[in-house]
C-alpha cells in the first residue's frame, strides 16, 4: 500500500469499504437520480434458505439501482457481504442477470446503459449450489452480451473480496477496479486451507493472503485496471471516468493468447515467493483498451 497510511490525512477520507451495500450503490449515482429496483419491500426472497434453517433477507443480499452516473445511464448491482458472505443464490442471481439484460435491451434501443457490479462475494451460495452455478453461467453470458454496447465495471473493494464463480464474472467485465483491501481469486484461502492443511496455506496470515489475492498484487499483475485507496470520493470519480471512457477496444477476456503466453512463460520448477510479483510491473503493458500498447510477451516473465 502507498505511504499514505502513515499520514493523518488518510483518516480524513470517507471509507468506501465501511459503507453497506445499499449505501455503496447509492453513493455512485448523480444526486437524486437513483431508484432501487426489486427492493426489499418487494420481498423477493430465497425460497430455499428457510428450508435449511437459514433466515432469508428481503432483498436476498442483492441491491439493484438505476439512475445516471456523470449524466450517463447506469445500473449498479451491489452484493451485501454481510448476508451469507455475499453468496449468489437463485434470486440474487436472477436479479443481477435481469438487470444486465434490461441494460442490454436499453442499450440496443439506443440508450446506452453501463453496469457497475459491486462485488463482495464468496461465490455460489452453498445452500443453493446448483441454482447458484446456473446463475453464474447466466450472469457471464449477460455480461458478455452487454459489454458490446456499454462498459461493465466490476468493483472489488473488500473486505470479503470476490471469489468462486463470481471471479469469472469479474474476469469477463470491461474493467476491474480494486482497493488494496480487496481480494480476487477463484479458490478462497479458507477453502485451500481446509483442503490442503494450514501448513500449505495459512488463511489467518493476512500478509500471505493479501500478497497473493490482494488488490495491489492483482494490479501489479495487470489483472486489474485501476487501484484506488479505500476512499469513497476516489471510487466515485473512478467509476464515473470509466463509464465516460466507454467500451475498451479489446476486452481482457478476449486476449487469450496474451494470458496463455504468460502462463507458459512462468517457471514453475521453483516455489514462487508471493511477495515477488509474477510479472514484472515495469515491462507490463496494461492488457485492456484503457492503456493498450503492443506487447512483447517474451519480456514479461520474471527476471
Amino acid at each position: 500500500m502507498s505511504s499514505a497510511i502513515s499520514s493523518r490525512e488518510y483518516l480524513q477520507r470517507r471509507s468506501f469499504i465501511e459503507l453497506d451495500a445499499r449505501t455503496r450503490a447509492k453513493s455512485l449515482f448523480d444526486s437524486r437520480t437513483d431508484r432501487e429496483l426489486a427492493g426489499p419491500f418487494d420481498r423477493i426472497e430465497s425460497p430455499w434458505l428457510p428450508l435449511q434453517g437459514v433466515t432469508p433477507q428481503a432483498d436476498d443480499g442483492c441491491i439493484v439501482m438505476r439512475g445516471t452516473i456523470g449524466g450517463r445511464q447506469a445500473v449498479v448491482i451491489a452484493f451485501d457481504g454481510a448476508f451469507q458472505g455475499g453468496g449468489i443464490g437463485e434470486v440474487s442471481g436472477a436479479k443481477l442477470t435481469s438487470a444486465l439484460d434490461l441494460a442490454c435491451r436499453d442499450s440496443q434501443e439506443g440508450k446506452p446503459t453501463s453496469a457497475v457490479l459491486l462485488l463482495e462475494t464468496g461465490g455460489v451460495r452453498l445452500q443453493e449450489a446448483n441454482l447458484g452455478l446456473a446463475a453464474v453461467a447466466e450472469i457471464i453470458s449477460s455480461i458478455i452480451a452487454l459489454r458490446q454496447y456499454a462498459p461493465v465495471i466490476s468493483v472489488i473493494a473488500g473486505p470479503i473480496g470476490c471469489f468462486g464463480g463470481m471471479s469469472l464474472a469479474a474476469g469477463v467485465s470491461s474493467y476491474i477496479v480494486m482497493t488494496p483491501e480487496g481480494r480476487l481469486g477463484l479458490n478462497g484461502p479458507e477453502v485451500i486451507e481446509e483442503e490442503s492443511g494450514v501448513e500449505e496455506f495459512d488463511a489467518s496470515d493476512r500478509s500471505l493472503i493479501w500478497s497473493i489475492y490482494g488488490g495491489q498484487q492483482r494490479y501489479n499483475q495487470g489483472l486489474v485496471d485501476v487501484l484506488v485507496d479505500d476512499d469513497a470520493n476516489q471510487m466515485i470519480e473512478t467509476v464515473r471516468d470509466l463509464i465516460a471512457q466507454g467500451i475498451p477496444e479489446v476486452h481482457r477476456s478476449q486476449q487469450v493468447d496474451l494470458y496463455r503466453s504468460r502462463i507458459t512463460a512462468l517457471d514453475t520448477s521453483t516455489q514462487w515467493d508471493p511477495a515477488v510479483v509474477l510479472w514484472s510491473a515495469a515491462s507490463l503493458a496494461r492488457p485492456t483498451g484503457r492503456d493498450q500498447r503492443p506487447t512483447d510477451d517474451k519480456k514479461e516473465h520474471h527476471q
Partner: protein
Amino acid sequence: MINQPQETGAKSWTTRREEKRRRTESVQPWLKGPILTPEKVVDALELLLKSGDRVVLEGDNQKQADFLSRSLVKVDPKKLHDLHLIISSISRPEHLTLFELGIAKKVDFSFAGPQSLRLAQLLEDGKIEVGAIHTYVELYARLLIDLIPDVVLVCAERADEQGNLYTGPNTEDTPVIVEAAAFHDGIVIAQVNQITDQLPRVDIPGSWVDVVVQADRPFALEPLFTRDPRKIDDLQILMGMMVIRGIYERHNVQSLNHGIGFGTAAIELLLPTYGESLGLKGKICQHWALNPHPTLIPAIESGWVKSVHCFGSEVGMDDYIAARPDIFFTGRDGRLRSNRVLCQLAGQYAVDAFVGSTLQMDGDANSSTVTKGRLAGFGGAPNMGHDPHGRRHASPAWLDLIPSPSPIARGRKLVVQVVETFHSGASPAFVETLDAVAVGQKAGMPIAPVMIYGDDVSHVVTEEGIAYLYKAEGQEERRRALAAVAGVSPIGLKAKPAETAALRKRGIVAYPEDIGVHRLQANRSLLAARSMEDLVAWSGGLYTPPPRFKSW
C-alpha cells in the same frame, strides 16, 4: 528458659550457598565470566539443575525463554528428572513435553491458554501433578514464601560481559523471578538475544546473574494484545457506548484497566469520537494500567490519555511508545520499561475500574474462561477483577459505589464484565452452572476454577443493557437484575417484565434508552479507527503491526 543449641556449629546455615557454589563451579570450564558457550547449554543444565529442584521457567503470555526450554527438553531424563516447574504461562509445546519425558513432574502455574487442551489430557493421564492454578501476582508472591526457586531460567534482550541484563520494553516478569533466586542462593540463568559491550540501560544488575547464554534465535514473542478494528461489530460498539455513558461518565472513572478483547477495543476507539461528542475528554479515563494496546493510539493522540503503565510491551508498538515518553514509562535509553508485578499491583490498588469480558457467567455473576476439556487458568484477570479490601485511598468513582451512606462505609472498585448474551454458534454466555465446576471436579481441584467471583462484580454490561449489581439489595434482587440483561439465555428467560420495569425505575437496571444511548447510532462509523491501516495512520507511521495483521 531459653533453649540452647545442643551442639553449636554442627548445623550449617549456608547449605543453599554451598550447593550453589558446588554447582556453578562444576560448569566453570565452559564459562568466560558469566558467559556460557551456547553449545554446552544442555550439559550445563544437567549440572546446574538437580532432580527434584524447584525451577522457574520464564514464560509469561508475551515473551518466552524458549531457547532454555528447548534446551531443557534435551537433557537426559536419567540424570535430571522430577523437576517441580513454576511457569506463569504454559504456552509452548515443549513445556508439556518436559512432563511427558519425566524431566518434570509437578507444575505450579497461572495461565495455559494455547496448551490448555493438552494440559487437561496430561492431567487425566496422570503425567503431571498440578500444585495450584494461581493469578500472576499470587504465583510471584509464593516465589518469596513457600515456592522459593532453586534455579530460574529467564530471558533478556541483551547482556554485557559482566552479566548485566537489558530486558528492554519486554521486561515483564524478569525482575521478580531473578530477585527470588538471586537473594536466596538460587541460580540465575539468562538467555539473551545478543551479547554486546554496551547496554542501552541495565534492567538487572550483573551481580544478580550467574550464567548468561546467547540464544540461537531471538526469544519468542506473541502479539497477544493486538485487535484488528475491522473485526469490531455493531453490538460491541453499542456495549462500548453504554460503558462510556452508563459507567465511566456516571461514576466519574479516572483510572482504569481494560482486559483484552474486541469489546474493550471498541471502547478505546469510541473515546475520541463518541466520548468527545459527549464532552468527556479530560473528564474520564486519564490514567491507565494497560498493555500497550494498538487500539489505544487514537485516544492517546487525541489527548485523552495522561499516563499508561504497562505489564509488558506489544509487538510493533515499541517505536510509538518511545516517541511518547510523557505517556509511557521509559528508561534513559528511551524505550519502555514494563513490569508485570508492579502493573498488576497498580491495577489492583490504584485504579477505579476494571473492565473485562468472559466466556461464561452464571446467574450469580460468577464467571470463568475454563470450559469443557480446557484448563486455561487465570492469568492476571482476577487481580484486576476484584475489589481489594486493602484499599484505603478514596476517589470519586470509588466513593460513588457506596450504596447507602454510613459513617464507616468503604468505597468499592468498579469491576465491570462486558458480555454478549450469546457466542457465535448460538451457545449462551449466561449459563445455569459454569463448566468450571465440572472441570475442577474432574481435575481433583479443591475449588472450582472461577476467574471472577460474582460478589466482586459491580456491573454487567450486555447488548441488552447494564445491571448495576452493586446497587441491588440482597442475592435475589442481584439475580433478577442480572437476568434482566441476560437476553434469551437460560438465565435471561427467568426475567419477569414487571420486575424488570421496577428495577429500571430504581436505576438498578438500565437499558440503552434509559441512559441516553441511541441504538441506531451504534455502528462502525463511530470508531476512531476501522482498520489496522487507520491505526498506523493515527500513529503517524510509528506503529508497525506484525505481518499477519497487515494486508498491505
